[in-house]
């Protein structure tokens, strides 16, 4: 009886310390259980914002292998825990529903995309790389040894990791491709 009646805020108003029902008496069960998703996260991972070159440090909160929050890392001497609008939108960037997560393939002269599984795509790309490399291969150019191909070119964005840039430059050079470019020049 007591608990049932106690559940009714009016009763709490009459008997408690909040006669006008403005705060303590009006709280619902759900309000009592309010908790921050940063507290219930499984782990916090240290990262860096992918947008501009200031390099603001980010804390990434993960729960059940899903990203639940990305905010600034107060320890950073560069950003002191703060972020700009783009940095603050990082969670939406990584969890965007419009992200493409499966390989898409467009046949020459086709008017729409088709699906393709990842491994097949990798094999097809390898075939084409070798073919284009061969087609554009030059042992010499203007009488000088060049040992290169002009058939394959690449344009990287400047949000590539150093490790990715390194493997790309190493592989492309080994293939003989020289038309390797990056947004750093745009």
């Amino acid at each position, binding site marked *: 009886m007591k608990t049932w009646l106690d559940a*009714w*805020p*009016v009763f709490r*108003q009459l008997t408690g310390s909040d006669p*006008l*029902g403005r705060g303590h*008496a009006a709280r619902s069960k759900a309000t009592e259980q309010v908790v921050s998703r940063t507290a219930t996260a499984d782990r916090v991972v240290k990262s860096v914002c992918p947008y501009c070159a200031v390099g603001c440090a980010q804390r990434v909160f993960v729960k059940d292998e899903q990203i639940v929050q990305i905010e600034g890392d107060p320890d950073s001497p560069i950003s002191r825990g703060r972020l700009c609008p783009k940095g603050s939108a990082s969670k939406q960037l990584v969890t965007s529903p419009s992200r493409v997560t499966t390989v898409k393939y467009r046949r020459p002269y086709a008017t729409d995309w088709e699906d393709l599984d990842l491994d097949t795509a990798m094999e097809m790309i390898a075939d084409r790389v070798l073919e284009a490399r061969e087609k554009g291969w030059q042992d010499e150019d203007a009488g000088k040894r060049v040992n290169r191909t002009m058939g394959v070119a690449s344009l990287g964005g400047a949000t590539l990791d150093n490790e990715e840039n390194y493997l790309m430059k190493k592989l492309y050079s080994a293939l003989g491709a020289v038309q390797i470019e990056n947004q750093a020049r745009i």
Partner: protein
Amino acid sequence: MTVSSHGSGGADSSGPTGNEPAGDAPVTPGAGWHRAGGEDLTRPRRKRRKGGGGWGGGNREAAMVPEAEFSSYYGRQIIKTPTWKNPEVPIYFFLGGAAGTSSVIAALAEFTGRPKLARNAEYVAGAGALASVVLLIDDLGRPERFLHMLRVFKVTSPLSVGSYILSPFSALASAAAAFRLLDLKPVMGLGTKVLPFLPKIAGAIPLLRKSSAVGAAAFGGPMATYTAVLIANTAVPSWHAPYDELPFVFAGSAMAAGGGITMALTPVDEAGPSRRVALGGVALELAAMHKVENGHGVVSEPYHLGKAGKLMKAAKAATVGGAAITALLGRKRPGAVAGGVLLAAGSLLTRMGVFEAGMASAKDPKYTVIPQRERIAAREAARGATTDGTEGNDITSGEASTITR
């Protein structure tokens, strides 16, 4: 590119090593800037006043009639437009008022030997109460949570207090109406099928009806006027400013409606009181409404302009017309019916007019800024007269009621 001539480190006490004397920093001219961008600047802009200042307070709204200048954020409204449904809520106000007064009429009719008047008034009160409840629940964003209205009792919330008026009133008024219905054979037959014990208590029905009617009448008055407090207790300029008069407008309008409807339904010989109630109501409503429409400066303006203005004119015409017919021909059936209908229509139109005026005053920042600026100016003047003015926009503490509106 940005250059920051950076004097990092502590302050310098050393004199200026620059190669020219440290000029005296200019005193920044006061506030008030000419708006540079924003709305369409291609219209030929007013020539800025020549001479040092050259700035005026915020942007100049092109107003039809020259009036107090005021600034705003690109002409955007400051407070939010109420989200209540139109016309459901004005109808709710009308029905509340009509039912409230009808319940009082019914109760008095029961004890002054006017059976037909009592019956009709009880039907009006019961129907009005039920319709009010339905309209209130329909206006909710989450109708299924209507019981939350009784979750707390907050004296600071007219809607909370209103819910605790509407609940008993609607219960008792519909009960009275129900007991009245049991006088009809078919209804009694149907009733006994559902409630077999009914015939046993048949004798007590009139007593039950009378007590329900009296119970309902107890809430009839508040039922009619709490809705005025409901809209006055908002930040909507045209509702809040006349908070002293609106309850009387609603009271008068309720009586006009209640009296009118019961007069129209009841044979003239028993409808005497309804006529008098109606006429009393009209008088009160017109008197109070006049103050609302003219007593509050710029904030009264919405009652004359646009849709609200049209509604208020129609309301006044119907109310005065109805009252005249009631007064002159009220004793004849056709007069009673015509008068009653007109009065009811006038009452509904008044509610819709007041509602519409409030909406209009919410949508235009003028009605929020100008009165508040006048209030600040009055306060500065008052304080200027007594003590030196202090900065900021605080209100003088002290008698709330003496604050000029």
